[in-house]
């Protein structure tokens, strides 16, 4: 396993009110090698604290976390990890080259390799012309791409990204997604902490939804978004046919001249097809029902309240 957490918790008391805050409240997760794992949750749900616990930036109140089988408090456990924090503040006195060189040296990358790798990565993230420019002059999107290059300097086996496309334009976002895709094909495990559900849906194959410091739902993305039943859409549906199907359908809605029906099983959907054809309706589409990640997310967060 790349990441294993067992009952990981971080509680703290507010400075003045002394109220106990359970930022992370007993999270147990496993992330397998080669996975693209998405961690979702509303603001303040404990996602970033969870990542900080993994990287030993904060100490757990209870439980434990292991990276590549090592206790996460062991600095060696972080050696194969690349990290891009959410609200990063890279030293503005460094140039792009210097920044990559500095963080790679802290990861133990020797000098000739650092020089070569920095050149490759600056090229890869489209900043090869900006390597000698001080970071203070970079735009938000450029900083994000440089941050990603920094995380890749030591060829990590696990990449932890906290809102990687924050501030990046759609083209840059696509480039980042492509880059992460190629890393994943090479076997890098990616742990993505993002509030952009579309991005997670496009990229991750496993997700966990965190709410109030706990895992409210976790599993393969395909399973979580798989709905039960069949969605049927038809045009020219008569009122009579609609009445006949009202009992069998779990949901009926009119939409731009079409009527959408949701049936609980295949038999009900087939019967409905017969009724609609008899009545002269035109079938637009029929498909197994699926939920979007957004629907799953909203439902899960609502239920967890």
């Amino acid at each position, binding site marked *: 396993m790349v990441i294993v957490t067992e009952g990981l918790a971080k509680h*703290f008391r507010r400075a003045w009110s002394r109220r106990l805050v359970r930022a992370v409240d007993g999270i147990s997760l496993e992330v397998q090698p080669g996975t693209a794992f998405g961690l979702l949750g509303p603001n303040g749900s404990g996602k970033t604290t969870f990542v*900080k616990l993994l*990287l*030993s*930036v*904060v*100490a757990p109140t209870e439980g434990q976390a292991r990276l590549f089988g090592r206790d996460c408090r062991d*600095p*060696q*456990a*972080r*050696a194969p*990890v690349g*990290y891009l*924090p959410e*609200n*990063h*503040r*890279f*030293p503005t*006195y*460094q140039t792009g080259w*210097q920044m990559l*060189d*500095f*963080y790679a*040296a*802290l*990861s*133990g990358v*020797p000098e000739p390799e650092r020089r070569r790798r920095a050149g490759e990565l600056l090229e890869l993230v489209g900043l090869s012309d900006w390597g000698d420019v001080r970071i203070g002059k970079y735009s938000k999107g450029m900083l994000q791409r440089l941050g990603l290059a*920094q995380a890749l300097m030591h060829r990590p086996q696990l990449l*932890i990204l906290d809102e990687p496309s924050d501030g990046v334009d759609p083209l840059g976002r696509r480039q980042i997604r492509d880059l992460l895709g190629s890393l994943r094909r090479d076997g890098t495990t990616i742990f993505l902490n993002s509030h952009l559900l579309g991005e997670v849906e496009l990229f991750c194959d496993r997700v966990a939804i965190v709410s109030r410091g706990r895992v409210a739902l976790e599993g393969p993305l395909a399973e979580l978004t798989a709905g039960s039943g069949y969605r049927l859409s038809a045009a020219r549906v008569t009122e009579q046919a609609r009445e006949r199907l009202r009992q069998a359908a779990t949901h009926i809605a009119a939409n731009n001249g079409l009527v959408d029906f949701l049936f609980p099983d295949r038999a009900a959907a087939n019967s409905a097809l017969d009724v609609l054809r008899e009545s002269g309706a035109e079938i637009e589409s029929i498909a197994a029902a699926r939920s979007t990640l957004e629907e799953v997310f909203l439902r899960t967060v609502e239920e967890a309240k």
Partner: protein
Amino acid sequence: MRGPLQMLALVRDTFRESLARKIFWGFLGCSTALILLFVLAVNIDLVEGARAAVTLFGQEVNRGRVMDLDLVTRRILGAVAAFLFTAGLFLAVFAAAGLIPTIFEPGRIELLLSKPVTRTRLLLGRYLGTLGVIAFNMAYLVLGVWLVMGIKTGIWNPSFLLAAALAVFAFAVLLTVTLAVAVVSNSAVLATMVTYFFVLISPLLAQHERIAPLFRRQWARDLTEYLYYLFPKVYDLGNMARLAMEGRAFTTWMPLWSSALFGAVVLAAGLWSFARRDY
């Protein structure tokens, strides 16, 4: 192998930051100005080799008296040593306060801690880098003045270099305070204030034998004595530098080792606190 590489990277990064923040250049400029002052303003006319007439900014400072050249050189170098222990230390503490706490900035510390580097090494690297920036500038000033005076007088007083080493040592001790307070408070201002407190209280506590009897209560007298032995003895270290300049033997080594002990304890406390802090 990773340890020295990380340490070197941290020290180099501190130098880089000091250059970018103009701290390094500010120090270097002040030191260069002082060296130039010695080059241009001090003029020593040799009379019969060992005796001299000294002019400063064209004014004769020995008013026609013939002075011992070695004494003149010692006094001038003594003034530079005094400068190092007063204005030099003040400037150094001020400069260091701008370098140490910056690594605790949110968004920067998380990334540093995510690297496979121990927290002790991370902080020690920053400490050594800051010490290196200041020590380099102090060495530049001292060697510059020493060379100028040596060339002008032909007298090469090695005790001046010892005085400079004592000034760097005093700064190294004070820097542990800056570091520890910055770790605990995350505040550059507070770190500077507390460090200045130790600089300012040092001459007062150095008079503990005179001050303590002035208190009516025994606990106040005891406290004065305890604080004197507990706190870093910047003033006493300055006195040691003066004794060295005058070619006199030290009467005691206590200010040196007790300040070193203070620095070691405060540094250990700072490292201990940093190892347990959440960011």
